[in-house]
């Protein structure tokens, strides 16, 4: 029986590609920067964020370890995979819990209290989950694994926010002591937020691109991972702002209203038009680089993605005050208009790249499926072409399987369709010479499809 280790774009390389070394270097730099920042923060600032930085290191170390174990899970044989994934999940869970406890204990617990923090977190979980669901669904041809989408969001929420706290604390400490207060200082704060936050978030997408190339096919995947990182970051930032404003305004009797306003602004109005949009640009740049032939073009695409993300983020932070919000009923309209006017064009830009990417992907997959059917190997049948090339038709077929053979039938057909699309994606990458080595896995995948077809009884 054939065992498929790889089911996506690339075969298992015989030696580690150089990108793994680059990923290890980037990860090492991130860890060193975080440790150095936290120690310096604690030593020189001696503020509450400084203490949070130091004690939060344990959580960050757990996330790093969980990521490492999680990535190993994709490189080991299927028998060991679930064990690695469970370990990674447990470590991530501990890290998230520890980080929340540290944040809560040192930043807000004494003022907002753990109950308020828990309520705020509970309010943000459904909206963020909805955002992740939508973002994953938009990749209609080949959905990314939940594992990687959730790891992206966790990195955005925990690692990126940690990097930002330390970096921005330093930037702020220097800026308020040297610059003239007012618009100039505000502009540097906006540069700080745009630069540090997008670098912190974008590093996660870059590491995914370098380590998980098999699940990083094109611009669509880049946008999905980038937006997921942004949603994770937005979750933690919303939690921080909600508890913060609650603590500030509760003595005035307006704590809940202030926290509720933050929730609406960040988890409803700004769920997609905010961090998700900014980091989606980073992902788009990396996704486009994935399919470019020359190294020079790849570097330019990645840098350009970062530049657009930083600029979009900067423009919001720096020029927000140009759109003041009145305290009357008119203010409710102005809040929405401000987000649409300031972030809407960037979100539209991401949607345009996404639409182009989806169209390219659909055209390519249709062509590859047609060629596979013509080759007559049995992996794709001519009568399946119409179904496989249309997401809605695929779904209807799965519903028919559900009706005739129950949940098991639905799942088996879904696996078969996913494997057929993986094969088409693999053919596409091979044709474009976007793979590390020639594909032995392609034949294994065909064998796997034949097995799945028998299981699905089609």
């Amino acid at each position: 029986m054939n065992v498929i280790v790889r089911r996506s774009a690339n075969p298992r390389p015989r030696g580690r590609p150089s990108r793994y070394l680059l990923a290890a270097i980037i990860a090492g730099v991130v860890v060193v920067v975080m440790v150095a920042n936290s120690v310096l923060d604690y030593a020189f600032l001696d503020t509450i964020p400084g203490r949070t930085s130091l004690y939060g290191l344990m959580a960050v170390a757990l996330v790093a370890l969980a990521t490492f174990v999680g990535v190993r899970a994709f490189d080991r044989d299927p028998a060991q995979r679930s064990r690695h994934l469970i370990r990674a999940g447990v470590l991530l869970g501990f890290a998230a819990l520890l980080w929340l406890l540290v944040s809560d204990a040192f930043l807000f617990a004494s003022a907002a209290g753990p109950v308020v923090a828990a309520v705020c977190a509970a309010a943000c979980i459904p909206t963020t989950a909805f955002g992740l669901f939508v973002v994953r669904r938009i990749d209609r041809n080949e959905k990314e694994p939940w594992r990687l989408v959730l790891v992206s969001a966790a990195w955005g929420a925990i690692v990126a926010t940690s990097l930002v706290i330390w970096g921005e604390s330093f930037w702020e400490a220097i800026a308020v002591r040297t610059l003239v207060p007012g618009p100039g200082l505000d502009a540097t704060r906006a540069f700080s937020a745009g630069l540090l936050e997008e670098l912190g978030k974008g590093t996660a997408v870059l590491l995914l691109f370098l380590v998980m190339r098999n699940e990083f096919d094109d611009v669509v995947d880049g946008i999905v991972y980038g937006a997921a990182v942004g949603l994770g970051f937005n979750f933690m930032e919303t939690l921080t702002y909600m508890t913060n404003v609650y603590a500030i305004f509760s003595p005035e009797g307006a704590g809940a209203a202030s926290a509720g306003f933050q929730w609406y602004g960040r988890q409803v109005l700004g769920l997609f038009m905010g961090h998700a949009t900014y980091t989606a640009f980073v992902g788009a740049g990396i996704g486009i680089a994935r399919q470019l032939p020359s190294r020079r073009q790849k570097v330019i695409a990645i840098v350009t993605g970062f530049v657009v993300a930083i600029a979009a983020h900067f423009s919001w932070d720096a020029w927000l005050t140009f759109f003041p919000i009145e305290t009357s009923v008119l203010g409710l309209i102005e809040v929405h208009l401000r987000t649409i006017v300031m972030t809407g064009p960037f979100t539209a830009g991401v949607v345009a790249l996404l639409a182009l990417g989806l169209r390219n992907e659909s055209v390519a997959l249709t062509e590859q499926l047609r060629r596979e059917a013509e080759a007559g190997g049995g992996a794709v049948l001519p009568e399946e072409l119409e179904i496989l090339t249309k997401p809605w038709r695929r779904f209807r077929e799965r519903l028919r399987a559900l009706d005739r053979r129950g949940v098991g039938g639905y799942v088996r057909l879904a696996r078969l369709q996913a494997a057929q699309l993986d094969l088409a994606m693999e053919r596409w990458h091979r044709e474009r010479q976007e793979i590390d080595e020639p594909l032995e896995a392609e034949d294994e995948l065909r064998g796997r499809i034949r097995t799945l077809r028998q299981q699905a009884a089609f």
Partner: protein
Amino acid sequence: MVAIAQRDPVVTLYRTLLVYGLFGLIILTAGLVEFLHFEPFGVTTGAHAHIAGVYLYDPATKETTGPDRSTFTRSELFAAVVNWSDVPDNITVQAIWYDAFGNIVGQAGPAKPGDLKDHRVVPAEKPTGLKYHLPGQYIFAVERLQGDQPVEVLARRLVEVERT
């Protein structure tokens, strides 16, 4: 038969991204220009002001009490005391309080230092409609103005208003 070379659709994506990148660079350049406008290089005069300290403030008497402090609770009223006599009289200055959100919450000037001798005490006001100061780091700055625009900080104090 004439073969027509098809353009790689990824190139279209790449070029679209480059156009976005150009807009991004324009935005960042505008931000840099904004920063340089409000933080111009080479305009320092070498003048310095002396902030005697930041003290508890009694609005009834308009006097300060107690020792110089750098932290206050939200309910405490506080004010900075400036020695205007140390500042050259040929420049326009203002003393100004910014709260942790960047709002101006207290001000003396703009005027010539000689005209501010009756404004040595500059209190930080609570925001309108609120019972307490907002928590966080407050900046008190004595600034030199060029036209209407502050261009140089002659003295600065940072004060922490505690959350509780």
